[in-house]
């Protein structure tokens, strides 16, 4: 890190201002930086790569919670919950250069074709104003940008035009145990795409097996958005950290400035020809709501009244237990096999869902060693008893967009800059809960066929979010139904785009980041075209 004072003043004559340095903002910035003057503003800090081992230590030690690993929390990240289910927002995000990819798992699937036409194909939810075919080339580009290790052995995956950039990770030993049971049940297993290097890629090393992928990869083998931020800066972009945008200003139908605060207590105005809001599914609608004006009294770009509405996440379904033989868990922190066989059976009553075969079932001996009242031989005996025979499966289930699931502003609490904090009102419908039960049935059947003693089931009562915030500024063809159009440009403001999972009209059941990345690349191309035309 340089020792001099950091210049956080605005860039003059900027073409594009990107708010948020997570994967969406980073990809937009990188794609435009060579030919445009780009400035990126992020609320959080620029983390020192030299601290990654210390952050890993925090991930292992019991005195640190998940938010502590990347310094989430405090007044800056205050929020409220008012829904039927508590949403642990600060476990679900990282603020800073790289955003939530700093702590993500790194799973990168494409949505299925039917996910773009839920209402037509399944009779529920919304149709997107774009098709899988519209996003297909951008999916391929996103796989190259992130560096995806995968294989074409999944018969249920949507069509693709070229192999993944890297070979898939080999199946685990425990995958081979699951395979016997699945074969007996005629359930297909296949590889799973990882944004994690199975070999050296793009100047980053292959995975070296630290086993702490989520929440920190000290090796840099797992993709995170610092990759594209650094590349954008090399191409000329300006990236300003610790610069939370307080509001967007507009004149008529154009955004004119992003007003941001800096650590020295100053407030600045960044002007630009185009603005991209890329703050994720919670802070994106919050910023628009905080930017209310006389022309937009209910929030900027909110003529439809849908800003903040239809908050969605994926729901976890899981089960696990023990075998009477070694299962070799916790060597790596990612999974290598999945099952999408049941995904496209979705209809009105059952949601799409996918199944995952874990490589990290049961306790990690290192973490176990740091708790308890024993040491010496007694501790070793406890660790041996606790480790070695666990197996587990997970799965993700789609939740539909619902009017009673939303993000708004809490009128009673403010953040460190005096702005109302986000209030999460998360509600989950019966279709999702029924689907969790269906996923549990299959998981239990597989585990029992495997000979496992099933010891836990995460069903409808124990489910939780997968930390995939979606839906709060959704995409729509009709300006009355959503916030952005098919190009992710706001219906209301001609020079404002949103690059985020917040534009998803429905969520499918696939991890969203590859779709976020594909949409971000598409946004960048649209901005480039429109700026050129202007």
């Amino acid at each position, binding site marked *: 890190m340089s020792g001099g004072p950091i210049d956080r003043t605005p860039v003059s004559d900027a073409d594009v201002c990107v708010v948020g340095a997570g994967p969406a903002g980073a990809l937009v910035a990188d794609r435009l930086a060579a030919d445009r003057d780009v400035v990126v503003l992020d609320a959080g800090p620029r983390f020192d790569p*030299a*601290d990654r*081992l*210390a*952050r*890993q*230590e*925090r991930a*292992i*030690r*019991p*005195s*640190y919670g998940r938010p*502590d690993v990347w*310094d989430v929390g405090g007044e800056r990240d205050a929020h409220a919950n008012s829904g039927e289910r508590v949403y642990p927002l600060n476990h679900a995000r990282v603020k800073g250069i790289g955003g939530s990819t700093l702590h993500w798992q790194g799973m990168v699937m494409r949505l299925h074709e039917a996910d773009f036409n839920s209402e037509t194909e399944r009779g529920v939810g919304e149709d997107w104003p774009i098709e899988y075919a519209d996003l297909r080339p951008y999916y391929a580009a996103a796989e190259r940008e992130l560096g995806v290790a995968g294989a074409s052995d999944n018969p249920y995956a949507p069509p693709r035009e070229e192999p993944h950039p890297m070979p898939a*990770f*080999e*199946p*685990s*030993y425990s995958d*081979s145990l699951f395979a016997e049971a699945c074969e007996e049940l005629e359930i297909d297993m296949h590889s799973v795409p990882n944004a994690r290097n*199975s070999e050296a890629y793009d100047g980053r090393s*292959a*995975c*070296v*097996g*630290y*086993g*702490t992928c989520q929440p920190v990869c*000290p*090796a840099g083998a797992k993709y995170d958005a610092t990759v594209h931020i650094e590349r954008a800066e090399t191409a000329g972009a300006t990236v300003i950290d610790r610069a939370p945008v307080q509001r967007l200003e507009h004149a008529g139908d154009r955004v004119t400035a992003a007003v941001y605060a800096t650590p020295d207590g100053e407030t600045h105005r960044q002007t630009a020809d185009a603005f991209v809001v890329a703050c994720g599914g919670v802070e994106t609608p919050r910023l628009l709501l905080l930017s209310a004006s006389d022309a937009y009294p209910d929030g900027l770009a909110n003529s439809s009244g849908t800003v903040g509405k239809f908050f969605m996440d994926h729901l976890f379904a899981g089960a696990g237990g023990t075998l009477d*033989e*070694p299962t*070799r868990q*916790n*060597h*790596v*922190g990612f999974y*290598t096999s999945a099952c999408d066989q049941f995904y496209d059976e979705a209809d009105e009553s059952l949601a799409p869902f996918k199944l995952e075969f874990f*490589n990290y079932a049961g306790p*990690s*001996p*290192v*973490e176990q*060693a*740091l*708790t308890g*009242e*024993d*040491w*010496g*031989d007694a*501790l*070793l005996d406890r*660790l*041996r008893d606790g*480790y*070695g025979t666990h197996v587990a499966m997970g799965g993700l289930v789609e939740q539909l967009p619902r009017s009673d699931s939303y993000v708004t502003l809490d009128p009673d609490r403010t953040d460190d800059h005096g702005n109302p904090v986000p209030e999460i009102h998360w509600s989950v419908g019966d279709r999702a809960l029924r689907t969790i039960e269906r996923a549990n049935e299959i998981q239990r059947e597989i585990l029992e066929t495997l000979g496992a003693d099933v010891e836990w089931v995460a069903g409808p009562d124990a489910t939780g979010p997968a930390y995939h915030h979606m839906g709060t500024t959704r995409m729509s063809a009709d300006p009355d139904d959503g916030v952005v159009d098919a190009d992710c440009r706001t219906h209301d403001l001609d020079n404002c785009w949103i690059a985020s999972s917040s534009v998803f009209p429905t969520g499918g059941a696939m991890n969203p980041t590859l779709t976020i990345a594909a949409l971000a690349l598409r946004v960048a191309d649209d901005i480039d075209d429109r700026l050129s035309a202007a």
Partner: protein
Amino acid sequence: MELTRRDAVAALGALGAAGGAALAAAKAGDSRAEAPDLADETTTRASMAAVATVLYPTAVDGVDSFVDEFLDGRLDGSAHAEGLRAAVAELDEAARAWHGAPVADLSEADRDRLLREIGADVADEDPEGTTAERVRYYVVNELLLALYASPTGGELVGIENPQGHPGGAQSYQRGPR
């Protein structure tokens, strides 16, 4: 099972020199009214090695050199190193007051008793907590983390690539030996 220099280097490879608490210390600054007493380097090394013989299972050998080499990377002048030396100073002071000798000179049984008397067995680790919580963080868990994040420590439990150790992306594919 012999703890080797490779294990010490591997433990450092997993944990680094700074320590998780150093990040918080750097961020928060030092707000303590007065600087704590710090054990000198010789006392720190001897005390940590002595405590390790209590904490580590009898199946491991080479504890002294393992701890010494591990501390080469952890006593580097960082905020974490200062917290470690402060916790050792408090433990050593208790050893002298309650058992009439420094930690390193106590019998193994008395060292075990000392750790329990100070409350490190039941305390939750906390780098900014009570004496018991800090001894648990900087002494007990520091040493347990070093052992069980190393290949030899992992193999004792049955996992040659324990979490925190960059042992490659092959071992997860192998069946039991």
